[in-house]
């Protein structure tokens, strides 16, 4: 324990990674709660995998992988959002298509990147400890912006998630709000890819929120608890991984999963203490 504290004091990059991971978990708690109540977990999964296409294309053309991932994630999210709004196309099919086509595009692009071999596992499993400080800062700014928008528009987001028909009747711009939420989701996904990698984005987005849902009586309460659970899992997971030389993303997810299944079990054993 004292070893970890000494490392934290000594290594700036470890502090930055911890700070970045916690900030991302906070945003993730807020946007993830909206995603969980709207049952949009798999949308996030599709968007995450689509971003690999953007990462591959960016590296192929010498651009930053963060911007490539952001562009592909936002484009994929808006495409899904637009398809859902128009109806017609089966959302499940659209997500599957985005999921695998994005992945395929990424693999093909990465295989063509010249000069040095790119290890896709960096993006698949993430490693926040290896991310350069400037990218971490950019992700932090994206996080902060997404958080600000989500808090500012909390009321209409909540109403649309709970009762979209009422939102329409009240004359709220439901379609625009939906696309905006999809954009926020995409940005959070990009930030999460750095922390846990794109394969495990769904887990960190939904597990803390689903855990919080079990103990919350309001959406705002759920968001606060999800942010707390996510931050705790990320911080502890990161430090344990550092200390024991484990992969950080996977350690964080194992913790978040353990907390979630623990909460489910706890409520099963003491049903009347759980709030319904």
């Amino acid at each position, binding site marked *: 324990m004292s070893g970890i504290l000494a490392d934290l004091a000594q290594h700036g990059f470890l502090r930055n990674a911890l700070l970045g991971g916690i900030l991302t978990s906070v945003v993730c708690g807020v946007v993830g709660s909206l995603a969980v109540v709207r049952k949009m977990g798999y949308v996030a999964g599709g968007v995450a995998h689509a971003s690999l296409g953007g990462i591959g294309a960016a590296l192929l053309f010498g651009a930053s992988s963060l911007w490539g991932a952001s562009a592909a994630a936002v484009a994929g999210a808006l495409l899904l959002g637009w398809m859902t709004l128009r109806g017609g196309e089966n959302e499940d099919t659209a997500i599957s298509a985005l999921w695998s086509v994005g992945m395929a595009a990424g693999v093909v692009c990465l295989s063509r990147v010249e000069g040095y071999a790119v290890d896709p596992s960096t993006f698949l499993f993430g490693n926040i400890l290896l991310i350069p400080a400037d990218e971490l800062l950019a992700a932090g700014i994206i996080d902060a912006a997404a958080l600000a928008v989500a808090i500012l528009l909390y009321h209409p987001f909540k109403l649309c998630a*709970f*009762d979209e028909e009422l939102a329409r009747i009240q*004359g709220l711009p439901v379609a625009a709000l939906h696309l905006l939420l999809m954009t926020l989701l995409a940005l959070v996904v990009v930030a999460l890819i750095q922390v846990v990698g794109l394969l495990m984005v769904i887990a960190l987005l939904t597990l803390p929120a689903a855990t919080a849902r079990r103990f919350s*009586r309001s959406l705002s309460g759920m968001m606060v608890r999800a942010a707390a659970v996510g931050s705790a899992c990320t911080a502890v997971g990161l430090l344990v991984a550092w200390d024991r030389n484990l992969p950080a993303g996977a350690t964080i997810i194992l913790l978040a999963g353990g907390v979630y299944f623990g909460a489910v079990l706890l409520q099963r054993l003491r049903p009347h203490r759980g709030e319904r």
Partner: protein
Amino acid sequence: MNAIELKNVSFGYDGTPVLSDVSLEIPQGAFAGLIGPNGGGKSTLLKLVLGLLEPDSGSVELFGKPVSRSRGLAGYVPQFANFRKDFPISALDCVALGGKGSLFILPGERKRRLKEAAELLEAFDLSGIADRQISALSGGQLQRVLIARALMGSPKILLMDEPTANVDSHAEHCLFEILRELNKKLTIVLVSHDVGFISEYVSTVFCLNRRLVAHPTSAAEGELLHELYGDQMRRILHDGGHHHHGEEA
């Protein structure tokens, strides 16, 4: 002035006509019922009045103004199935979501809305369940919560979709008492396929089956119902124990 006025409204989904040349006037202060068979266009008409759909031709006005400029004048009580019942929200907070639409709600406004919602819950004798989760309410309680929500912001007309779909006969009776009280202050329109309930209570019945026929309650019987519903309806009238005479209500 009319609360609702439709002039020669036609509407269809992908070329299949649902409403053909419907004209309708519901005067301010009325307690009206809109009945008709499933697929007869009731929900579509409701959506047109709420501004969720635009007519292919004709005009829809609420209190003399086009629907798009009269938001907030109509309170709407949906059937239960329309929202997420597993959403983490208390009865009080659910009521507070009603009223005028707004993108930003500042803390002062939020406080004012919660106060109005608490007063409405009290008026419906629901203060005891204000903190209860929506998912834990009974059918009758949930319906009264939704009526309270529709009354946020003091609308001038209350629209209810299938008010008897999810409540037992006792709750149904309570509901009518509430509505009769509310009707002293605002126009009420009930939309239902449940002819028995509607014609017992309301003062005017509109029968909709793509086209519209309007009648005072007493006439909404016999030949007309037969014309609208065919033999099936006559069987319900004979066997189902529904009565349509005012004095038995």
